[in-house]
């Protein structure tokens, strides 16, 4: 990399965000395994932090994102508070969703994060619709929709991407290609190439190294500016790798021996950015300090979550519907 015009401040900011995402997930994993505090399955994005970080830094607070079952990184990067997120993972009062959604339904409408989704691919049409809403209301926001490589094999991928093209909507579809769909190698179950599908649907399509946060942020800056300017949808294929298992308890033995270790050594976006920052003169102490700060933040978030009460019993029936609410009649 040519370091002569490397923006060190931006690099440090990005490193801090990626460390926060990693620390959030490692803390959550520890809380799940050691303390059994996290109740349901959680999907970690360890190794994929650059995608959330590099893309979302280009968004405004009033831009929208939609995410997947693997959504902690996107949510944090959009500006959600770690302690509210941790409480949600523990099913506690004060969680982003009041303990009703957990990891797979994490959402923070305050920062316009319109939800993770427990149904693979389902967020694609909804995201297109959020962009449709923006267009109808005459807004200048944009939408970013994150989904996995595996999701591109579901029907809503075709319907949602086509929709955005037909109506010329201000949306960026980001396929976060970590090579796997649960325990299946996605390429084994995919005919042709995913980016070609987007091209065939008429979307301007960019393929990028999803583990190089510096380059990805620059690419995403251009793309998001263009979408805001033209109101035209685009597609970004971000190649990355899921260093951890599908869920926090998945040993991922279906991967060829040594693959994860080799990929971790060569592709980890945090390690790569640290190396670049070192080369530009940032001390190891300073780099380690960012990681420590992130870990301390997430330890505090876990402490707060551990101490938080369960949601009030009566909230089980709240926020279902106004008309015919189960608070009034459930039988």
């Amino acid at each position: 990399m040519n370091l002569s015009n490397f923006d060190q401040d931006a690099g440090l900011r990005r490193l801090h965000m990626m460390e926060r995402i990693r620390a959030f997930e490692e803390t959550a994993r520890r809380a799940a395994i050691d303390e059994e505090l996290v109740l349901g399955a959680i999907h970690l994005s360890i190794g994929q932090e650059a995608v959330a970080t590099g893309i979302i830094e280009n968004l405004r607070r009033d831009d929208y994102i939609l995410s997947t079952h693997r959504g902690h990184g996107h949510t944090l990067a959009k500006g959600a508070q770690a302690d509210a997120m941790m409480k949600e993972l523990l099913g506690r009062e004060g969680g982003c969703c009041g303990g009703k959604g957990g990891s797979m339904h994490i959402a923070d409408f305050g920062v316009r994060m319109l939800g993770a989704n427990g149904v693979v691919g389902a967020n694609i049409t909804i995201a297109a619709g959020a962009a449709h809403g923006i267009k109808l209301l005459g807004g200048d926001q944009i939408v970013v929709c994150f989904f996995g490589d595996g999701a591109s094999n579901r029907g809503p991928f075709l319907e949602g991407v086509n929709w955005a093209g037909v109506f010329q909507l201000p949306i960026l579809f980001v396929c976060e290609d970590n090579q796997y769909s649960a325990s299946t190698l996605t390429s084994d179950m995919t005919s042709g190439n995913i980016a070609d599908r987007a091209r065939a649907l008429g979307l301007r399509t960019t393929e990028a190294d999803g583990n190089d946060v510096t380059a990805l942020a620059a690419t995403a800056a251009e793309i998001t500016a263009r979408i805001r300017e033209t109101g035209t949808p685009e597609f970004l294929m971000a190649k990355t790798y899921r260093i951890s298992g599908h869920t926090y308890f998945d040993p991922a033995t279906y991967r060829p021996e040594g693959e994860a270790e080799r990929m971790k050594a060569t592709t980890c976006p945090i390690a790569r950015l640290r190396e670049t920052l070192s080369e530009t003169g940032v001390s190891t102490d300073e780099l380690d300090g960012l990681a420590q700060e992130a870990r301390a933040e997430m330890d505090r978030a876990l402490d707060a979550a551990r101490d938080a009460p369960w949601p009030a019993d009566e909230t089980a029936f709240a926020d279902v519907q106004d008309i015919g609410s189960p608070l009034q009649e459930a039988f």
Partner: protein
Amino acid sequence: MAVMSYADAAKLAVAEAMRDDPTVWCVGEDLGRGGVFKQYTGLVEEFGPQRISDAPISEAAIMGAAFGAAMAGTRPIVEMRFADFALCATDELVNQIAKARFMFGGQSRAPMVIRKPMGMWRSSAAQHSQSLESWYAHIPGLVVCCPATPQDNYSMMKAAIACDDPVVYLEHKNIWAHEGEVDTTKAVEFGKAALRRSGQHVTLVSWSHTANLCVEAADTLARQGVEAEVIDLRSLWPWDKAAVFDSVRKTGRLLVAHEAVSVAGFGAEVVATVAQNIPMKTLPKRLGSPRGLIAYAPNLEDQMRVTAPMIAKAAQDMMENEPA
């Protein structure tokens, strides 16, 4: 008061709501040409193609995108063309729209009207004829309504558009052309049944077009000296238990009739709820389609039909088989 068709009554409600609120819009296949049943005719001329929006044949995306647009601050009216095709958007409706407000801890709403033309229509066969209202009544988060008259198709459409919950709005395909008086000042509340006829001998509970058949059956019964009370539920969730209970307390006899398959139909829900609460003079009865499939040939199709004479006969049987 004007006389208009069931289709035009809903169209008037949509047009009025769109004039009042610029965030209301309609989306579905072929809407720019008036929709397949002409229930949107003329609207694109007034509101333009953005607000009367055509859509690709992508039911999942129509439903999902409308939901996204609802979360972004608009109030979509979704046209599914046939209730049967809405099954292509089941995940979007059941897993996403119905659950979002709850799963996200009250952060979002889905103020949507989801129009699903339902029911038998001569020789439309198994994939264009179904009545699946009980499926939706089963899903927490959804309001379900089945208007049977032009008045209700006006008033309930108005209420559905104003509602902040997702409303599954099932119009019956066989009655688009039915005409009736429409009083545009008349409001209808979900969960309030319409008393279509008063009587003291037997309570007929129904909804959608079968409620009209119940009125017909009640006329026949009256000629035979039986006064039937006809309750048109209009909405299945919430449904007007109080009105049904009051009526059955008076008549002591309950017959529920609907076009959908009887097995696990909403009639079972009504009968069970009444049976748990109100003592009756005779065993309650439900009359629905056999658990068979709707065929193309009229003589086969008719075997799945609930008709006015069948309803009258079932009510008459209840009168005659009364235990001493």
